[in-house]
């Protein structure tokens, strides 16, 4: 045995009350039912139109601002839609990414590849598609498409994120600042990524690391006079350093420089010219072999990393949901206008119909909910059950009591049914109309329904209030239909008049007449001055069945009298016991 206090139930426990309260909050029931229907339907329409218009807008930017037109634009737009759906990012985000890529000058297959890997990297959690697209296209542009493709560039960026310790989106957004100097300094993209990964292990800030690396590369691209003099003093030049970076890699080039300077960090700092560049150089020089392997090594071995990261993410629930949503949104691009065209005329006529019939429906609803509410949520139901329990002994005793019960319930049944049944008919009609809109809308979504469970779920949530209302009303209608049938059968059979008391006098009583009253021949009545007796009037007389012949049961009364008690005490105890019994169970002896 346990006391259970539910905190959350699987169903809306407030049920009808909630529905009624929600409806009663509306100033005008008619207008608001229309609003609910309109919201459910236009949720699809608005979403589709918004999705369609935003995608169209991003493609229009590609056309208007970038200058891509005709067949090429169609190909890019088609690829954006397809890749957006495949990666779960959606056509809209893909369109925005495409604009960035096209703006950077990439075209054709290179642009599509850049978009594909940007979307995959974004799906893997590297950041916003737009930022990644900017970084990837910047890298491709900086190094040249013939040296590094979009896929390789994205792999390096993903590998940097994996090897480093920073907010990935910040890196994607800031990498563009270092690319020109890195390229000019002879550094590969991989070396640049490895260096950033190493620096972020200390400062955890991708933007700061990018700034540091930019300063370091700048020191070898545009050396100051002091730097040139310092390099000359050890037999080197800026060009030698750029060659070393290009041929041996950044860590080896810095090692060589440090060695030439005899490990003099102060001189190295002056040569590099800025605290950012010095800080970057010192950290790379001081890193042990393992750290170098974990940063530069990982980034140099980045091939295929974006696809791996994307594959991992693809299996997650989050991504599956995103793909479902993207599929749904993509479908909306096609069907948006069709839905609005089909549904809007019906919606208008529905609103008009609701405006005309609203007050009557509102009254109907209030009565329905009031009646149901009284039965379900108030104490009336408990009272009725209690009243039944209280009446039960009398029902057992006399058929007359059953008649009284039916009489007592009749006004309730008549009042309830007469008031509510017409309303049920009205509501069925309303629900039929609402169902029509729902079916139309969902039906319009057609074939992609099976592929886009996520969106259908969303749509169901939108429609849920209406569907729930419909379900409740249909249950109510069934309930009242059964009650109405029962009551009408009762009335058709003659109602209370059909209860022929004389027909049952052979087995039961006609009533109680202890306090007087008329009797009818052929019926039996309960009378009795010396305990209950039965009087059965008949032509020319009648018959009294004495109390003793009515049968009965032995009565056992326990008296706890000690053996040593005297007769008077025992007598008192017996009398007390009998009185106690009589208080609870009626008289023991018939009075004289």
């Amino acid at each position, binding site marked *: *045995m*346990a*006391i*259970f*206090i*539910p*905190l*959350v*139930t*699987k*169903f*809306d*426990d407030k049920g009808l009350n909630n529905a009624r309260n929600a409806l009663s909050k509306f100033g005008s029931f008619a207008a608001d039912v229309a609003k609910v229907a309109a919201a459910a339907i236009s949720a699809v329409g608005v979403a589709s139109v918004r999705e369609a218009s935003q995608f169209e807008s991003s493609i229009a930017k590609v056309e208007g601002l970038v200058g891509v037109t005709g067949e090429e634009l169609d190909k890019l737009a088609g690829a954006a839609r397809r890749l957006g759906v495949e990666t779960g990012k959606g056509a809209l985000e893909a369109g925005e990414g495409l604009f960035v890529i096209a703006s950077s000058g990439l075209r054709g297959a290179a642009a599509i590849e850049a978009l594909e890997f940007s979307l995959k990297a974004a799906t*893997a*959690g590297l950041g916003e598609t737009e930022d990644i697209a900017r970084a990837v296209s910047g890298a491709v542009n900086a190094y040249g498409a013939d040296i590094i493709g979009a896929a390789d560039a994205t792999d390096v960026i993903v590998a940097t*994120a*994996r090897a480093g310790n920073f907010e990935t989106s910040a890196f994607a957004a800031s990498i563009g600042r270092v690319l020109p100097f890195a390229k000019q300094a002879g550094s590969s993209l991989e070396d640049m990524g490895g260096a950033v990964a190493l620096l972020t292990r200390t400062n955890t800030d991708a933007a700061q690391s990018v700034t540091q690396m930019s300063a370091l590369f700048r020191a070898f691209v545009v050396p100051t006079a002091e730097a040139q003099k310092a390099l000359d003093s050890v037999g080197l030049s800026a060009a030698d350093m750029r060659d070393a970076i290009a041929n041996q890699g950044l860590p080896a080039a810095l090692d060589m420089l440090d060695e030439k300077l005899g490990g003099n960090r102060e001189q190295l700092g002056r040569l590099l010219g800025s605290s950012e560049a010095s800080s970057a150089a010192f950290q790379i020089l001081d890193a042990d072999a393992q750290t170098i392997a974990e940063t530069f090594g990982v980034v140099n071995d980045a091939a295929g990393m974006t696809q791996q*990261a994307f594959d*991992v*993410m693809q299996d*997650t*629930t*989050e991504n599956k949901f995103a793909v479902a949503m993207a599929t749904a949104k993509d479908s909306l691009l096609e069907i948006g206008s069709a839905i609005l065209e089909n549904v809007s005329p019906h919606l208008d006529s529905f609103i008009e119909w609701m405006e005309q019939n609203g007050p009557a429906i509102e009254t109907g609803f209030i009565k329905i909910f009031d009646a149901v509410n009284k039965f379900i949520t108030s104490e009336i139901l408990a009272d009725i*059950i*209690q009243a039944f*329990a209280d009446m039960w002994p009398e029902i057992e005793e006399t058929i007359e009591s059953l008649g009284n019960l039916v009489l007592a319930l009749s006004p309730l049944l008549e009042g309830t049914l007469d008031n509510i049944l017409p309303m049920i008919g009205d509501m069925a009609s309303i629900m039929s109309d609402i169902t029509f809109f729902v079916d139309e809308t969902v039906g319009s979504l057609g074939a992609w329904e099976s592929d886009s469970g996520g969106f259908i*779920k969303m749509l169901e949530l939108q429609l849920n209030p209406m569907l729930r209302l419909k379900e409740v009303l249909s249950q109510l209608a069934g309930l009242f239909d059964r009650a109405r049938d029962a009551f009408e059968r009762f009335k058709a059979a003659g109602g209370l008049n059909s209860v022929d008391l004389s027909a049952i006098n052979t087995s039961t009583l006609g009533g109680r007449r202890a306090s007087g009253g008329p009797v009818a021949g052929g019926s039996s009545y309960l009378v009795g001055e010396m305990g209950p007796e039965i009087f059965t009037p008949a032509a020319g007389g009648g018959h009294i069945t004495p109390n003793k012949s009515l049968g009965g049961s032995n009565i*056992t009364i*326990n008296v706890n009298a000690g053996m040593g008690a005297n007769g008077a005490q025992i007598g008192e105890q017996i009398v007390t016991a009998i009185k106690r019994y009589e208080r*609870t*169970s009626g008289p023991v002896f018939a009075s004289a």
Partner: protein
Amino acid sequence: MRAEGVASVTRELRSLDRKAVNELRKQMRARVVPIAKEIAGEVPQQAPLSGMNHNGVTRWTGTPRASMSFTPGKSRGGGTRLLGMKFTGGTRSSGGIGFDYSELAGSSKRPGSQFSKVYERGGFGGQQHRVTGQGLAFNRGIRAFKPIRGKGGYFVFDSALKKHSRIEGMGEVAIAQFMRDATNDLQRLRAR
């Protein structure tokens, strides 16, 4: 929270990680059980009626045992419970269910027999005894000891009602914490 939502979430969680639902249950337990124990601790140590100080099945045991129940799956019996707190003073077999009776005092419609059936004892037939179940005097006694508003239980239910907003907040915090942990796991997965 709706059943469809919970069912789909737990389904998704299971597909992601079979132990995820257990983790969610753990999070719920970590937050709901302390407050359940706090509620149980508010039940008086002394019996509300002096007649409950005995060693029988219905004896008063003071602070009841508190636990939590989280049942996200479908119920064969049509139960609607999802998350709840359970309290019990004992069991029918080992006794101590005085708390359970007191908590639900007055909620039973059963009047009970006034006398037992006739039986034989010690060679003497025709024996009867009075049946003193949960009667009016018991209900009156509990009401006098712990007056409450409304018709819920007298001790833990009453306390839970007063802490409702806090309990609700706890549930939300548990879910939020779980989602944060799940997100972190995903982040770690990505970074691998």
